[in-house]
């Protein structure tokens, strides 16, 4: 036990001695949280619209002013030439073109159905879908007004209707930030923890200092434990730090029990850091470690469901997620923070990770060779 304590102390001294690493550990996560959480949003604020109004009538102007009145659309130009409008789209200056053809009002008043054309820049399919939906709302609104103003002309028909009401639980304002923040937090503590741990042993190898440890009577498991604990503490500290920031700046809800969350995080970090150490025992240079870890990080992060729901992924990807520690924590941190899930709800994930941690750490101890 005393030996482990001494190794841990040595590691801490080494970490805090490096004056460039400290700000990276403290400041970087702070900046990242601030920037990335604000950046990660699909909420549409401004859709730039160009108008080609070939009708120039009261009705067409009314439709246009409906779009102007909508909080989503900004009219940033109108032209008579199709070509000019298309150029705007091509140059990426506008997101949607509204074309009102000649005879629009005539058709409308004579009681026929009038066409308008919407050209949406669809390079980003998600955004295009939303843009389309918002413009349909505006048009549906216009249509509704037409009906109510002309009830005497249009025969009201008795129609069946199903009244759909909806409620959004846990996040009634559909605030995307409180969903992203826990996700980004998971990435930050993993990057810091796993990378530091992974680079650690291999660095000693590169510097040659590992041989000095190898000739001491330190046991293999003592060595691995001593390497693991400091980064575990740093990562747990990062988590607390990040949550505090999230609470202060973004006012994220903390519905669940923090004890459950930190308990789970503790096991998760054993897996994440264990994987780092395992890679470290196998690699011979820091560069190798970085690229291997980097590769897995990028892959695992994307598959973990941080941006998109795991359920929508193909089956094989969901199977791969069984060995993806990110996927477990990504799910659990959101469940506990936002929905207040208790230990019973997350026990399956908890025990899976516990077994995972045991396997990874035994592998790391076994792979670490005291003989050169």
């Amino acid at each position, binding site marked *: 036990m005393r030996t482990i304590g001494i190794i841990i102390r040595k590691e801490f001294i080494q970490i805090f001695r490096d004056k460039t690493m400290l700000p*990276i550990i403290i400041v*970087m996560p702070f900046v990242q949280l601030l920037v990335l959480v604000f950046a990660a949003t699909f909420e549409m604020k401004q859709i730039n619209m160009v108008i080609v109004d070939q009708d120039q009538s009261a009705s067409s102007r009314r439709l246009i002013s409906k779009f102007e009145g909508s909080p989503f659309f900004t009219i940033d130009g109108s032209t008579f030439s199709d070509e000019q409008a298309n150029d705007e789209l091509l140059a990426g200056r506008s997101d949607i073109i509204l074309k009102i053809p000649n005879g629009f009002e005539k058709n409308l008043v004579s009681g026929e159905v009038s066409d308008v054309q919407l050209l949406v820049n*669809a390079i980003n*399919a998600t955004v295009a879908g939303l843009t389309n939906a918002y413009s349909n709302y505006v048009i549906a609104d216009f249509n509704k007004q*037409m009906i109510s103003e002309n009830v005497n002309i249009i025969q009201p028909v008795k129609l069946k209707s199903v009244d759909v009401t909806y409620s959004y639980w846990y996040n009634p304002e559909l605030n995307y930030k409180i969903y992203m923040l826990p996700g980004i937090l998971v990435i930050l503590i993993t990057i810091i923890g796993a990378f530091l741990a992974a*680079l650690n042993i291999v660095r000693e190898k590169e510097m040659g200092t590992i041989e000095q440890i190898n000739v001491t009577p330190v046991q293999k498991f003592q060595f691995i434990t001593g390497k693991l604990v400091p980064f575990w503490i740093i990562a747990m500290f990062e988590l607390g730090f990040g949550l505090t920031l999230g609470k202060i700046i973004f006012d994220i809800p903390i519905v669940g029990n923090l004890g459950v969350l930190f308990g789970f995080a503790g096991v998760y970090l054993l897996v994440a850091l264990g994987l780092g150490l395992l890679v470290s025992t196998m690699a011979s240079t820091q560069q190798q470690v970085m690229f291997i870890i*980097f590769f897995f990080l990028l892959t695992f992060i994307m598959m973990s469901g941080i941006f998109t729901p795991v359920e929508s992924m193909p089956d094989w990807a969901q199977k791969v997620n069984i060995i993806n520690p990110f996927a477990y924590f990504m799910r659990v941190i959101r469940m506990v923070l936002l929905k207040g899930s208790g230990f019973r709800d997350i026990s399956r994930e908890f025990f899976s990770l516990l077994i995972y941690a045991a396997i990874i750490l035994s592998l790391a101890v076994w792979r670490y060779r005291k003989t050169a």
Partner: protein
Amino acid sequence: MKQFLGFIKKEFYHIFRDPRTLLVLFGIPVAQLLIFGYVVTTEVKNISVAILDRSKDDVTREITQKIIESDYFTLTQNLQSDTQIEEVFKTGNIKEVIVFEPNFAQKLGRDGTAQIQLIADASDANTANLIVNYTSAIISDYVQKQNKLQLMPMQIKPEVRMVFNESLQSVYMFVPGTMALILMLVSAMMTSISIAREKELGTMEILLVSPLKPAQIIIGKVIPYVALAFINAVTIIVLGNLIFGMPVNGSLTLLLAESLLFISLALSLGILISTIAKTQQVAMFISLFALMLPTIMLSGFIFPIENMPVVLQMISHIMPPKYFIIIIKNIMIKGTGFGFVWKETLVLIAMMMVFILLSVKKFKIRLQ
């Protein structure tokens, strides 16, 4: 010159004698493309829903059938009471509960209206929004069919055309994005780490006392990575085209030239990082934090820049990947020529100049 060539040869040896790194280097673009192509889709599919049917009549069964027949939803559970809703949300799998009011069919027949409540787990706001929209659409589609609704007069019928991407494929987003991400990371990380490595191991001193000029040392270090990154760029373009059908509508030469420009920019950024960092660890963390996450988040790769707060939009102006992504989207998708991208190209060149100037100023040829 001969010495210089010898130096470049040494760098290539350094890279090739480490097959593990090499494997990762060439594996990254392939893996990322496959992941973005097949795994990270913003479409919702197979979302688990639960039904709380207080009526259990023909109409509710029919609507339920319609909902689970769609690709979007899978019925996982039938609930019996309100109290169960909270429970199923907390265990995590179910994203939406559909509640039919009692005597649904009867009310629909008699009063002409009946109520359905959709309760979504909105902890994932985006998905919740999509799910609720899809469910409402299915329901209103059902109602319309029941009414055999003829089109009302005096209405506008919008005719929508999705320009550049008729079938709304996500490949148009992720191929340019992946390209920017991979080129940025491979180039900047590799150079900054390999230079920092020479410093850390002390071999930089040996290089500095050699007859090679500092500029030659740096250029020699960088050239192999230009080659590697360029191979990566070509891999992404070819795979994107063969597997995902990403077109190259514009000039291929222009596309490759712009890629080369972006690679050089990333490399000069890598050099700059290495002049600041003393150890590989520091170099890596700077490249990772300052490059990876911002390249994903602030470049318009996944999240559109126009929707961000103004401050972030301003920050995004100094993100080189942003300009590169605009350029390659223009060339690959819109098929526009240099006339449409010269401004972005100039910005990239200017940024590169700044990075090179800064590195030259910061590069120390003497030891402290």
